[in-house]
């Protein structure tokens, strides 16, 4: 039953989790118990007391910030992976049709520009965070991290030139990019973080959210527009391209959902950064007054 208690706010868990687990070991758990605990978790989440406790407890705040960093470090390579493996290929199928529809082309150009800014911001925030946090993690965890850190930097460099190498080789890069930061993210999630460390991450993370949201909206609107305006043309185009259109469409939907999820996670991370930052500033302003 511990998984249900994980749904409660951290401040609540720190206070009541152990005794509740002890109680649950004695209690006969039924579906009513599960529903009751789930409802209790929802109420505790909305309880201003526990919200305030979360905001004021430095340990709780640091834990949330660390999780947010891990999210960014993992979301970035995953996003690149999705983009390289799926979106690049699908663009080829629809490009001839896009060229024949001027309004859609203009929409695609605008959405593409917004997305490019978002991707650039995401790349920069990912790189910035990775380097800063890696430095911290290396300080705390020693030279074990030099190899994954080197792999991450190499993977990012390779991503920059992936268009200039044969397709067969470039397909390996995303896996490389996806795998290399994971040990680093794991290590970062375990190192001590100071809120001031994150002040530069807030704006890039927020921009990245906008970019990712634009990407998801673009894929959704673009897909609906094509299917809505001319499904026959899409079918014909798929036949000409000799590629199954249905799996492609499903990939689009899955990818959109994935991107949206990542955007929400990153947005939530940015929000936590903001909270940590504000909390840190409040601490800084209240320190002289207290002393």
């Amino acid at each position, binding site marked *: 039953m511990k998984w249900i208690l994980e749904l409660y706010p951290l401040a609540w868990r720190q206070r009541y989790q*152990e*005794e509740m687990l*002890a*109680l649950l070991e004695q*209690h006969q758990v039924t579906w009513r*118990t599960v529903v*009751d605990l789930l409802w209790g978790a929802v109420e505790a989440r909305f309880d201003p*007391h526990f919200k305030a406790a979360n905001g004021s407890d430095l340990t709780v705040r640091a834990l949330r910030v660390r999780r947010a960093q891990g999210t960014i470090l993992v979301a970035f390579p995953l996003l690149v992976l999705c983009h390289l493996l799926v979106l690049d290929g699908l663009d080829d199928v629809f490009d001839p049709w896009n060229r024949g529809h001027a309004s859609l082309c203009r929409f695609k150009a605008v959405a593409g520009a917004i997305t490019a800014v978002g991707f650039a911001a995401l790349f920069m925030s990912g790189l910035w965070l990775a380097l800063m946090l890696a430095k911290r993690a290396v300080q705390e965890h020693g030279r074990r991290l030099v190899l994954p850190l080197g792999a991450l930097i190499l993977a990012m460099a390779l991503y920059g030139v992936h268009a200039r190498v044969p397709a067969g080789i470039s397909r390996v890069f995303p896996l490389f990019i996806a795998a290399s930061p994971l040990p680093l993210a794991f290590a970062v999630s375990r190192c001590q973080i100071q809120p001031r460390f994150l002040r530069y991450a807030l704006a890039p993370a927020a921009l990245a959210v906008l970019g990712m949201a634009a990407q998801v909206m673009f894929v959704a609107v673009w897909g609906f527009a094509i299917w809505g305006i001319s499904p026959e043309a899409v079918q014909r185009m798929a036949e000409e391209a000799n590629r199954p259109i249905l799996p492609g469409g499903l990939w689009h939907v899955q990818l959109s959902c994935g991107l949206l999820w990542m955007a929400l996670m990153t947005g939530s991370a940015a929000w936590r950064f903001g909270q940590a930052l504000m909390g840190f500033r409040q601490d800084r302003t209240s320190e002289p007054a207290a002393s």
Partner: protein
Amino acid sequence: MPNLGRYSDPGLLILSSLAGGPKHGYAMMEDILDFSGTRLEPGTLYGALARLERCGWIEALPSEERRRPYRVTGEGLRALREQLQTMRQIVSVAFSRLAEA
């Protein structure tokens, strides 16, 4: 009296249980089932305990292994007494009107 929301009834049951002496969570659930026939589930129990503790009506005692006993405070006893007097008045009026009906 602070508003305990949906936890006002469980709160009354918990205060009544703790009026008989300090108890940990599971012992409270069993005691409440015995004297009232109400089976409190853990989510409701701890939601009410958190609110009662915040009101200062109960307080936690040092943990015994992983279980933590609670006891009712003087403030909590006063609140329980007030609540029961109100209930007694309601019961008395209701019975007298029932007899007249």
